């Protein structure tokens, strides 16, 4: 049985935020009187993650994803609750713990901006006390895999976003961390690079049995890498389970795409479901998930059909629906 590596119990993190009234008068007023509000960035969240799992952390902007990752990394002190990562309380910031995990944030960097990336790698080698052999081998492997061998001697500020992101990843992985927190690792990258990075993360998980939590706005990242997802909304966990089961749990409709032998009118199709589109002899219908097969059979009986497809709603649409339903 796989061991639990990350354990989060009833964790909350609240911030006090200063609210300023708009305009110049608001600015003057704020010199004397300030209004503060408590924001519940993470609210009573609990979950367990086992060794070797890749978890997709999904949520809208400001949902509390990054805050949770920062708590797990020991950057933030939780307002309440208990956290354990690899048996350590992250907040204690024990060096034995810090040598075993890495937090990678797509928009921020740990590389020294004015120096070539190799200098930052050498510094990490010293900081994480990486043996020479492991350093040389890992660097060789990672820089070949990510195709950055030629740019390691160039000042970081002169690199493109994609090149920098790859170097960030190398810097974070040189010490072969057992736990990886990836916050938007593919942000700003082109589709080819996104795919390379995804393949790389998959490979890393397989080779080192690393436990990975990934947040991303790109559902492709989540779909390709994660079997299990945690959905968080306004600081509260609203789903924790297999990605596939989201469809079964939340999808209300299926999509029927039909090609008719003859032209069919909008009115004729309305009785079967919501007509999303219709053009000459092709139509797309949105039907109740449970009735999809039955409706398809009725259509086949009534019309001369040359092709019919029953599809699940795309996961993006379902998640969008979950969030909009919650908001209502």
């Amino acid at each position, binding site marked *: 049985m796989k061991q639990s590596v990350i354990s989060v119990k009833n964790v909350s993190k609240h911030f006090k935020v200063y609210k300023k009234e708009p305009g110049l008068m608001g600015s003057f007023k704020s010199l004397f009187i300030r209004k503060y509000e408590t924001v519940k960035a993470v609210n009573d969240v609990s979950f367990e993650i086992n060794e070797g799992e890749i978890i997709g952390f999904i949520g809208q902007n400001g949902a509390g994803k990054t805050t949770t990752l920062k708590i797990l990394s020991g*950057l933030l002190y939780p307002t309440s609750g208990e956290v354990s990562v690899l048996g350590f309380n992250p907040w204690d910031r024990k*060096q034995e713990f810090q040598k075993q995990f890495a937090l990678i944030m797509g928009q921020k960097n*740990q590389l020294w901006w*004015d*120096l070539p990336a190799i200098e930052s790698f050498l*510094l990490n080698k*010293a900081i994480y006390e990486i043996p020479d052999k492991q350093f040389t081998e890992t660097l060789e492997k990672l820089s070949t895999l990510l195709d950055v061998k030629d740019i390691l001697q160039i000042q970081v500020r002169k690199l493109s976003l994609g090149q920098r992101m790859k170097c960030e990843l190398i810097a974070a992985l040189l010490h072969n961390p057992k736990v990886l927190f990836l916050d938007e690792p593919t942000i700003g990258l082109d589709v080819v690079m996104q795919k390379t990075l995804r393949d790389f993360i998959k490979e890393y998980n397989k080779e080192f049995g690393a436990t990975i939590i990934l947040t991303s706005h790109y559902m492709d990242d989540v779909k390709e890498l994660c079997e299990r997802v945690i959905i968080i909304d306004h600081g509260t966990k609203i789903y924790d389970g297999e990605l596939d089961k989201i469809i079964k749990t939340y999808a209300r409709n299926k999509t029927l795409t039909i090609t008719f032998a003859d032209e069919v009118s909008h009115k004729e199709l309305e009785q079967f479901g919501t007509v999303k589109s219709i053009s000459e002899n092709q139509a797309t219908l949105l039907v109740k998930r449970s009735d999809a097969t039955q409706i398809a059979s009725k259509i086949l009986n009534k019309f001369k059909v040359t092709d019919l497809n029953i599809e699940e709603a795309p996961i993006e649409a379902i998640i969008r629906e979950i969030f909009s339903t919650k908001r209502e």
Partner: protein
Amino acid sequence: MQKYVTLLKLSWQNGLVYRTSVIMWRVRQFLGTLMALTVWLVIFQGNPTAFQYTKDSMITYIFLVSFLQSLIISTALNGLADRVYSGEISNHLLKPLNLFGYFAIEEIADKAKNIFFLILETIILFLIFKPMIVFPTTGVFLLFFVWSCFGVIINFFITLLFGAFGFWSPDTWGPRFLFFMILNFTAGKLFPLDILPTALQKVLYATPFPYLSFVQIQLFLGRLNLEEIVSHFLLMLFWIGLLGSFVTWLWKKGLKNYESTGR
């Protein structure tokens, strides 16, 4: 230990990337000393002493101020509170490093760079003014070195103290600016503190500021008796202990409040 040595080397490399900034910073320091020397030499024209200082001891004073400015007062951590508030320190907090150790390395790298340039500048000033420097005995010289290190530690803790403001407020420059102003007058940077009225001197000695240059210079110039040497020595240790404990407590409290914004 190796990690801190590598960090030191990298900090040096990083500090030398912007050549114009380095040169301009040094020109500013050089002009400051040049002006001070010129002004005091004018004051001493026709006067053997001024404010109980001979010409040679005042020239020595100015050279020492310039040296201690680079060693004690100048700091790479001026923007620390900003770095705290903006979340920039998150990178250090994630790594198996001692946070104060990291800052200390930044300081050492910066001070070493300053002193390197200071030596070059001092040679130029020596060639221009051909001053007679008053040198103390070896024992006093060694004690001066130890006291200078104490000054470095006191200023390091004060800098960390101001840095901690960033945990609670974005208004980090106001208090820091006020501190600079106070420091310019109270560390003996602009003029020797013993030309001030006795009552004011007493007030100043109740603060750590005279230990950021003035007291060290007084020792070097042989203007302290044994009793004063012992009491200043103990007071410096007192300030190190007090500020060190307070800063450690404050940062622990601050880190619990840390928001790691923007990172």
